[in-house]
């Protein structure tokens, strides 16, 4: 399954990449985009929004469903991927390249609670059944 080992994961199917400067880049997993189907619209959180871990902060709309995006970490939204406005399908084409938003973390201790690739794969497997 497509689950890069250099990333962290949440139970709600987000992936997290911790950058050298300590910020977190967040997107949804290959498994998530596959389950959703063709994505038609991504509603990202507003710039500057302060989010708590597991707080719902956006929506991804596909042709058959609308799924909430949950922030896997607490912090402040410092960037949103503007490409997804005109081309939401990038999330289907390249789930790990088409990031949704970046966070400045307010509580790095939360990182220890995130899943590694192996743990996430188990969850995704179970989801598929």
């Amino acid at each position, binding site marked *: 399954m497509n689950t890069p080992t250099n990333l962290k994961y949440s139970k709600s199917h987000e992936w997290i990449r911790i950058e050298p400067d300590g910020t977190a880049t967040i997107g949804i997993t290959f498994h998530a985009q596959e389950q959703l189907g063709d994505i038609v*619209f991504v*509603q990202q959180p*507003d710039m500057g929004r302060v989010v708590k871990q597991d707080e719902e902060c956006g*929506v991804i*709309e596909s042709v058959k*469903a*609308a799924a909430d995006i949950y922030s896997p970490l607490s912090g402040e939204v410092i960037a949103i991927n503007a490409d997804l406005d005109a081309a939401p399908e990038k999330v289907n084409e390249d789930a790990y390249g088409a990031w949704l938003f970046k966070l400045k973390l307010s509580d790095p201790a939360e990182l220890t609670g995130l899943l590694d690739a192996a743990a996430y794969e188990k969850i995704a497997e179970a989801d598929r059944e």
Partner: protein
Amino acid sequence: MPFVPHTDEDIRAMLAAIGVESVEALFDEIPRSLRAHPLPELPPATNELEIVRLMHSRAEHDRRYRTFIGAGAYEHHVPAAVWQIATRGEFYTSYTPYQAEASQGTLQVLYEYQSMMTALTALAVTNASLYDGASALAEAVLMAVRTHKSSRRVLIPRTVHPSYRKTVRTIVKNQDIEIVELPYDLPRGHVDPQYLAEMELGDFAALVIPQPNFFGVLEPVDALTDWANARGALAIALVNPLSLALLKPPGRWGRNGADIAVGDGQPLGIPLSAGGPYYGFMACRKELVRQMPGRIVGRTVDAQGRTGFALTLQAREQHIRRSRATSNICTNQGLMVTASTIHMALLGPEGLRRVARVCHAGLSMLLGKLSAVPGVSRVFDAPAFHESALKFSVPAEDVLRALRARGILGGLSLKSDYPEIGDGVLVCVTETKTESDLSEYASHVARIVGDRFTPAPCAPNSAP
């Protein structure tokens, strides 16, 4: 898809196919205690003959009047072809489809309707209609607050229909939204943008701009739209769709156009029917479409590349996103918009323009005739579409009662909703009134006002 009931034979065959004894048996999971019982208070069924007699006698209670009342519901001529076509079985029995794509014809009519409304309002997208104009305004208020994100205050001028303002308050009451009513300039009859600019109003999400307003008066829509936009708020246009055949459409108001346009579609092919059903329309700029409630029909292609229609942007709706739907609206006024679409198609832009012109000309003619009657005056001096507020030198009640005795509904009393005007009456003229109707109205009024006009004996300067 024809909607024809099943025969007993059909039913037996279907039951046999699924191996069930009877239709009753399909419900046997529901506990007996929860099953509905017959309703003893209901009278026994009547037959067609009895019903027809009953309805005729009820109808006789209402005399036949010639009406000069507008105030949100207007008497217009609807060509016979409109309801001939709209009452065809295919249209008449169609509900808002849930398996929408199986009803391509229904979706196509809605798509045509939507296309016509975007042309009329000059805004990018419309929905497939809402319940009525008042609730459409409430939905626009909710939509503006959702879009604006920081303020939950909406400004509504008192020149907006009193029933619409009440409806908005009822609908937003429990949603933590503040409605601020704005005053209007009394001699002119519309909102004064200068006054607004000077008022300390604080932040607000939207300004409602009626056009024409409840008094029939034209508001300074460009100045109001720009004023709202400059304050970071949305401009919600509340418009009479027939007037849009003559007036500048909301999409072209001010520098950037209005953001949302709503109103009641009744003037376009819908009979008065003692108050309804009518339908509400809503249009908005493209960027706001995801916040717009109601059904939206889109045109697309199927897997074989053939043109087809589908309900689209359904993630706004309850059946996809229950608690975060933009609204609880999950239907539309299908039959009404079908009739309205046929009406608009029959009249076309030129026909609608002519109707609107004749209405306006009719009002001008009536006002001209009444200007020759001492004791009748206009309340407002600003330009109007097809309605005007009048005052008489005798109590309005007396005038209206005397007119009613002559088979004329002379207008709507404004006393209770607008006491500051005094004893005003709102009068409407449409293309259904001939010149002789107007002369008759004026001569009756002249007689009523003249008969009663006796100057007080002690008043100085009173003519003998």
